[in-house]
């Protein structure tokens, strides 16, 4: 058994939550290598992005498997001008919900916009190491 203290301390985006589980830690470690994982239920096969350790349908344990789609469409966006306290120094930033061809969705920042975002515009999945401990997936246009 791996003790929590031996794990590399990783955070998703600007998370402050330290409630990391072995399952979520595995997701974060893959993300640090620019690999996005989803979950697949070991009983009914249902897939979830972002991943869930327990299947939402049958509550069986799920396993982490690679998510291979990289292109999405912008479903909706917000430009956050007035941010929560922890992100005040980052504002303004753009949060987008992107939808992949399979219908799976992901919520993340768009980091390279040169003009106003538009619903329906194409998005590409990207990755970023924010600092030593912070890693994230993101959207690129």
């Amino acid at each position, binding site marked *: 058994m791996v003790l929590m203290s031996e794990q590399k301390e990783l955070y998703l985006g600007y998370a402050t939550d330290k409630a990391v589980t072995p399952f979520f830690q595995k997701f974060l470690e893959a993300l640090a290598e620019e690999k996005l994982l989803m979950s697949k239920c070991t009983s009914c096969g249902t897939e979830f992005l972002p991943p869930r350790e327990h299947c939402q349908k049958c509550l069986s344990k799920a396993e982490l498997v690679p998510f291979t789609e990289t292109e999405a469409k912008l479903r*909706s966006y917000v430009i956050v*001008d007035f941010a929560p306290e922890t992100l005040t120094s980052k504002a303004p930033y753009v949060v987008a919900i992107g939808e992949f061809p399979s219908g799976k969705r992901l*919520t993340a920042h768009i980091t390279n916009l040169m003009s106003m975002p538009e619903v329906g515009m194409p998005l590409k999945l990207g990755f970023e190491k924010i600092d030593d401990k912070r890693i994230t997936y993101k959207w690129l246009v």
Partner: protein
Amino acid sequence: MARRVAVVAGGHSKFGKRYDATMRELCAEAYKPIYDEGITQDKIDATVLSYAASQFTGQGAGSALIADYLGMQDIPHLRVESACTTGTASLRAAWGMVAAGLYDVMMVLGVEQMNRVSSATATEYMSRAGDMRWEYPYGISFPAFYALMASRYMHEYNMSHDILAKIAVKSHHYGAQNPKAHLPKEIPFEEANNAIPICRPLNLYDCSLITDGAAAVVIAAEDRVKEFTDRPMWIKGIGAGASEMMIQDRPTLTSIPGAKRAAKAAYEMAGVKPDDINMAQVHDCFTIAELIAYEDLGFAEPGKGPDLVENKENYHDGRIPVNCDGGLKSKGHPLGATGVSMTYEIMKQMRGEADKPSRQIKDVKYGLAHNVGQSGQFVNVFIFERGWS
């Protein structure tokens, strides 16, 4: 068969930045008018405290504190938490206990004290009602969730921001006539349409306020109602609905699925239709939320809410008056107090006791309260019926 239950009395504190009071004093302000009507502590069997966010005060065991402060230290109490729908969730809990016969007379007290922390800290606390693992790390504040709905709505129905600004103008028009309102001032359309951005496409005047305040209502079982009033407001229909935790997982962003489910259940229980409703108090935490509420409640077809706004059908003398007390926008939004305040306002309107004739809705037989938690994860819809002719 459950017993019928009526709202028999109500009280309301001044809403605002109440640096002169904390939650206990606010609750006393809300209960005092009820006490003065003769509903003294000994007449109340139990209380429910609607108190959504203890992180703002640091006070745990809130219902014990409030019961004790109000001289009800020996009367059973409990606290309910359901984010911004805590008020009507509390009323739903109390209704269940009275309808089932556990108690005859209960008081629901709603309160929130939010201004002892900075706006950024308040925004931080409220953003934690999003999914802490997957949404919070991207700084999705409370207005950001509704901005995600607004962007999509504006795209799907080709709507300009003008419509949202007109909703803000209406809210402030009525808030200016409500002595209990947090920000009782009229705002011109140009100001509402061009205010500083908060979460684009939403600006300052699209957002409700961070408010301190309290409201209270007393409910009683059918056979006890006459002891308290000859103008009971019957709880005719109750609907509760739920939606996905993460906003990205919703099948739509131009409607709140849980609100539609709650509305359907409430209409069915009450045996009435949207056309029968004479006034509505809707959860306008943001202007886009009010617009979407028109459609989720069946007052307008999907995508047609803007017509209702353009035609001013939502004014006090219109087809379906909405939030003629200023709503969360101008009256204010002390989270736990909001749903109770909606109930109080419907009772006052039904009794013809709005503060000014210019915001008094005529002949209210059925009033509807629509109270949404967070970005729609939980919704309560109540339909009230006037119990006198």
